[in-house]
């Protein structure tokens, strides 16, 4: 690819046009690693490549990789649900929507064996050696405090500073043993269900890429306003004193 890119742009365009129609055939036939200069450039967009779910040669860009002949363009499956795991701003959130009502059914089928029918958690029986157990997810009533009195229930929804924490965990890490297999609508619905079970949203509130990031979480104010504190460790006091980060 590095060699090709150095040739004239006319030649490049010619090659592109000639091979555009043959890309699918070429890719299907491609089983051996390509040596330097043997890769074919394509103007096909990444989205198209993903929809075919076929490995593609990386697109040429203004800067070439120093490691020629290496790798393929990721397919949709390659990126998995991590593609729509989103930060607090919700930038990468997928299309789709869900409500707690819809989420209740999905929860019963996919989650309740470990988290309990009412999201109260499941604990194992003695000598059962059972992998089916998980923490309480619903019924939270207070944010984490140093000395937690009896009756104060701190669920994930009550400690997470952003609803994205719940969405991302469900999208990428759940359900255990089949992690990352839920569809966007299911993830929105389950997130809504967890939020509803903690009294944070109503049962009919629709969660989507516009509404979800704006849900106000009980513990939101404890998180640093900017992620800059993580950009320079010396600012956090991690290297001073006893090597223990002493808070933000």
């Amino acid at each position, binding site marked *: 690819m590095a060699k090709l890119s150095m040739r004239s742009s006319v030649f490049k365009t010619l090659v592109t046009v000639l091979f555009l129609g043959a890309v699918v055939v070429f890719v299907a036939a491609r089983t051996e690693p390509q040596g330097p200069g043997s890769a074919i450039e394509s103007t096909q967009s990444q989205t198209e490549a993903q929809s075919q779910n076929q490995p593609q040669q*990386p697109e040429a860009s203004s800067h070439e990789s120093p490691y020629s002949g*290496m*790798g393929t363009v990721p397919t949709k499956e390659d990126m998995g649900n991590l593609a729509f795991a989103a930060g607090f701003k919700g930038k990468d959130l997928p299309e789709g929507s869900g409500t707690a009502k819809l989420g209740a059914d999905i929860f019963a089928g996919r989650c309740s064996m470990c988290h309990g029918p009412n999201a109260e958690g499941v604990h194992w029986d003695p000598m059962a*050696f059972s992998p089916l157990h998980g923490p309480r997810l619903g019924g939270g009533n207070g944010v984490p405090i*140093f000395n937690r009195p009896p009756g104060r229930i701190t669920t994930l929804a009550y400690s997470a500073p952003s609803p994205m924490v719940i969405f991302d965990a469900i999208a990428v890490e759940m359900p255990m043993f089949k992690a990352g297999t839920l569809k966007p609508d299911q993830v929105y619905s389950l997130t809504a269900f967890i939020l509803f079970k903690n009294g944070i949203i109503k049962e009919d509130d629709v969660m989507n890429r516009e509404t979800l990031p704006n849900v106000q979480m009980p513990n939101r104010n*404890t998180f*640093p306003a900017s992620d800059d504190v993580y950009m320079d460790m010396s600012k956090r006091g991690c*290297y001073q004193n006893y*090597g223990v*980060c002493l808070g933000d």
Partner: protein
Amino acid sequence: MSSKESSRRVFLKHGATLAAMTAAGIKAASGQGFGEDPKLRTDYVPEDRVPKDHVWRDPWTGEMMRDEEGNLVVDWTGTPQWERYRKNAQEMGKKYGTLEVDSRLYGVRSRYVKTFRRGLDGGSAFGYSGTPTAPSSNKTYFFSLLSPMDSQLGVITPSGLHFADEHAEVPEIDPREHRLTIFGMVDRPITLTMDELMDMPSVSRIHTLECNTNGVTGGLRNLPWATAGHAFGEGSCSEWTGVLMSTLLDAVGVKKEAKWFYASAGDEYNQTWAIPVWKAMDDAMIAYGQNGEPLRPEQGFPIRLLCPGFQGTTNIKRIRRIKFTDDLTLFHRMYEEVRPSGKVTWFRLEMPPQSCILRPSGGQQLTRRGFHEIRGVAWSGAGKITRVEVTVDGGKTWKDAVIQGPVNSKAHTRFAYPWTWNGQDAIIASRCTDEKGSTQPSTAEAANSRDLDLATFKTRNLSRNNIAQPWRIGRDGKVINAIFSV
């Protein structure tokens, strides 16, 4: 068969072999017994006599494995031939022929060495951190497989004794099927096979990997019978081989605006962390080797993320996907810590300086007065260890120990201090300083730094507690945990 006949046949056969080799233009090996017909050797078993269920099988094809000469790869344990050899060897004397298993293909420890990983997540299987599942006889709850640091000799933890915190069942991943995908805010998203990853420029570095709950779970470090293996069992040090993340950044062309990358496993649980991009530009790596061989399954086979000095959970095992972004989120296990003031400290990354005397240490026994070498290891997530001090009087005075090189950054570093035990009660401890100038605190200093009174500090199991670890040596020579005494 008489010996004369036998040697005559040997001679004839030898001659025939020589003639054949000369005819083929091959120079015969000099001396007797080698380079001859293998059937003349006492150890050789022709292929038709090899018990086929003792031949190693190719993991993919199921075919019997052969070496480059075409010889079958055989574990002879339990075969009639192995037992006959053992019987013959045992006739030479009691100490011979004692190997019950044929350890020639992959070695085993001496039968007199029985160090083992303590913990709940181990045994016949690996369970779940926090909710152990596999059978165990442990009465005190702690969720990890702890490395027996109390018996560690050098700075490298043997791979089979490396600590392991697992959050789901450990899968056996086929490296030919596994991929590493890097996407998000990059110019050239890429999916790499394991072969391609191994074709990239590589490094091999010695680094400590430590859980931020080291010594915390189950209050192990506070228990009177705690050994160094209980106090620091969730820390191990290995030589890691792999591709630096900075190399991969070059390959994908990460965009300037990217501040974080989400690193995600490909297994039953897909553990994921958000990690600052500066760590990828610094020393994070995708490791495929540990201590000279491929990663073990419980260490993330075929590849894992290694963030030297960062807390254990960031070192994603079985890493499958990396997404670059400018938007931070929290994944499971990116915990917060609440202080009495109500202030919340969110996830931390680097581990503080720590050290521990391993000999003499908790559970051990001094058998005589006189010279003892106090020795142990020190490490810090911030860089190299620059100083280690030792006290033999319960913290009243501290003296410099000798640091034994080579000193690796963010890695176990050995120290030694010559000491003469006079047979009296003594409390010994070590404290280290790293290249950023951080020194381990005393109990009082640590409590103060966390806004806690001493009593509360002692009863709460606090993550990243890096107070000096003292050991008390009684008049009887018994060494016990003396936590909080320094």
